[in-house]
């Protein structure tokens, strides 16, 4: 049933020049799950995320979102599908020529059927959701701190009330304190709005706090997929290194995941 599987990746292969990044990669993410995508550097995490976003055309295979293929079927269908998920880019990717308000309002205005008063109220609601104040709406992206950029980017990602939220390194570049509060924010919003969340991360704290399942990307495919406890049982150098180092044990232990 389409409702249960939000993302379906089937036999996905990606090639850059002569290098195969993924080969016959399969992945299913069910509705309401919070999945962390981990992998060593160069393992193709970001590439996979870009495939899910429809920024890259797969060499072979297919990505389906909400049961529908990402590509084909005309501009209107593709656009409607893309409105159902929100993306938080690593650097925020805020439009630097727009202020905070216009950044969040951008997609709402693109819909063409919301009036400005409604957009204003919705933007204020989104800013409140990410714990920003109305007076922050007038600031330009260049005037924001790193943590605020992430919050505004999150508000923009949530602008159209998506069902799926994709996060690329949500806590990269934040100090531990900000990082914790941002993770808490995403978690509470995710639960409150019933979002499916997919995040790419290499930060164990984020992973431990935010994800219910982990997908380990290595050797051009999903090597292991399950809860942390299940994934750790896989005998692979990357997994052993990533999850079973002293530091990892400490973090996962304190999060009660092992």
């Amino acid at each position: 049933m389409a409702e249960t599987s939000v993302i379906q990746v089937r036999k996905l292969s990606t090639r850059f020049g002569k290098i195969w990044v993924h080969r016959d990669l399969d992945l299913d993410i069910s509705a309401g799950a919070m999945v962390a995508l981990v992998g060593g550097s160069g393992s193709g995490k970001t590439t996979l995320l870009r495939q899910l976003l429809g920024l890259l055309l797969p060499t072979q295979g297919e990505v389906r979102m909400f049961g529908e293929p990402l590509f084909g079927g005309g501009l209107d269908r593709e656009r409607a599908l893309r409105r159902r998920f929100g993306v938080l880019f690593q650097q925020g990717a805020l439009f630097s020529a727009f202020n905070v308000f216009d950044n969040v309002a951008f997609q709402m205005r693109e819909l063409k059927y919301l009036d400005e008063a409604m957009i204003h109220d919705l933007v204020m609601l989104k800013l409140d959701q990410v714990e920003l104040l109305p007076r922050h709406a007038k600031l330009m992206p260049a005037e924001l701190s790193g943590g605020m950029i992430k919050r505004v980017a999150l508000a923009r990602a949530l602008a159209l009330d998506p069902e799926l939220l994709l996060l690329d390194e949500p806590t990269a570049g934040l100090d531990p304190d900000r990082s914790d509060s941002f993770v808490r924010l995403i978690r509470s919003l995710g639960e409150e709005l019933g979002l499916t969340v997919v995040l790419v991360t290499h930060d164990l704290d984020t992973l431990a706090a935010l994800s219910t399942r982990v997908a380990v990307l290595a050797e051009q495919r999903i090597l292991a997929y399950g809860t942390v406890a299940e994934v750790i049982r896989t005998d692979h150098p990357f997994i052993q290194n990533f999850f079973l180092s002293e530091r990892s044990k400490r973090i996962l232990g304190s999060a009660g995941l092992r």
Partner: protein
Amino acid sequence: MGRHRHRTEGPQPKEAGAHIIDRITVTVAHAMSDTRIEVVAGSEAGRRVMLSGRWTLMAIGPRIDDLMRQLTTIDGHAEWDCRAVDALDSAGAMLLWRAWGRQLPATLLASQDHLRVFERVAAADRQEPLVHESLPTFHWLLSVGEQAIAVGRHLVDFLMLSGQMMLNLAKVIHHPGELPGQEISANLYKSGVRAMPVSALVGFLIGVVLSYLSALQLRQLGADVFIVDILGLGIIREIGPVLIAVLVAGRSGSAMTAQLGVMRVTEEIDALATMGVPTSLRLIFPKVVALAVAMPLLVLWIIVLALAGGMVTAQIQLDIGYQVFFDQLPKAVPVANLWIGLAKGVVFGIFVALVACHFGLRVQPNTESLSAHTTASVVTSITVVILLDAVFAILTRSIGVP
């Protein structure tokens, strides 16, 4: 995806105790789901409004105005029942909130989850509203003043940049080891050598066009041989230097502004400064020196090609042979004109580079500012070049004219 609006008239009003008196159902059907309002007038507690279906932005879609109108026709004392709502997102909640006059109705029946969404909307509304500052009465006067101050600031900064270049020059003369040779050479290649093909093409074609137009006039007067004077004087003294300055301002000036601008945005300039590298000596001085050297050479290059173009056309149009052209040129155009042309090249080059760097260093870290400053840089350099050309024309009015 069609919209049905059916109005079902229920049984006629009955006596007390009847639960349903009349029923108006408005269904806004959508491809995936629908958003429904049903007004049920009960007897005791006044009207009851039953909401059902999906109250999400995607489900509501362009029907939002219709829905809003439907909702606002319902009077404020109604009981609202949202228990049959399948999905409610913040846009749906906001729509209802606005229809309720920015408050929760006295009686609202909804699931826990949906109540939380309404609370969220209510909480956001309790925040201090965003105040839009109105423009002061004499804002146009203020903006004139601001513009004037901005121009003044530009001039001061430009003067400081020029002064900095003088200091750099003095430093390099005293310590030749500090000369940023590699950067100068790279800039010479980028803005000099790489500009040769395009300036050759432009120069040759301008020569052809000028020669052709002049030939048409001169033939009527029978003054064919004066084509050498016209082309020689015009190209060497005026057109060559100005044309190449415009080309270089568009080509290298914009590139310099964009490069410095992006380096500012990505904090590369700050990084250099923290490493103790004098940024003006390493980034700006080489550009100025490179253009000061490259421009006169390019002037020479474009003069040669424009004259060649003119010569070819003169031969075809007026039957003036190449030999005549070569013989006539030194007599018609005193060599002082060439020096003036080359001097213009040096001065134009210095100013194009200085203006480009000046604007590059003012770029703010956003895309809008980058494009605005690049445009301003090119427009300003071309204007400055034309102004300088006028100054040259006045200063050299008695030199090199036969």
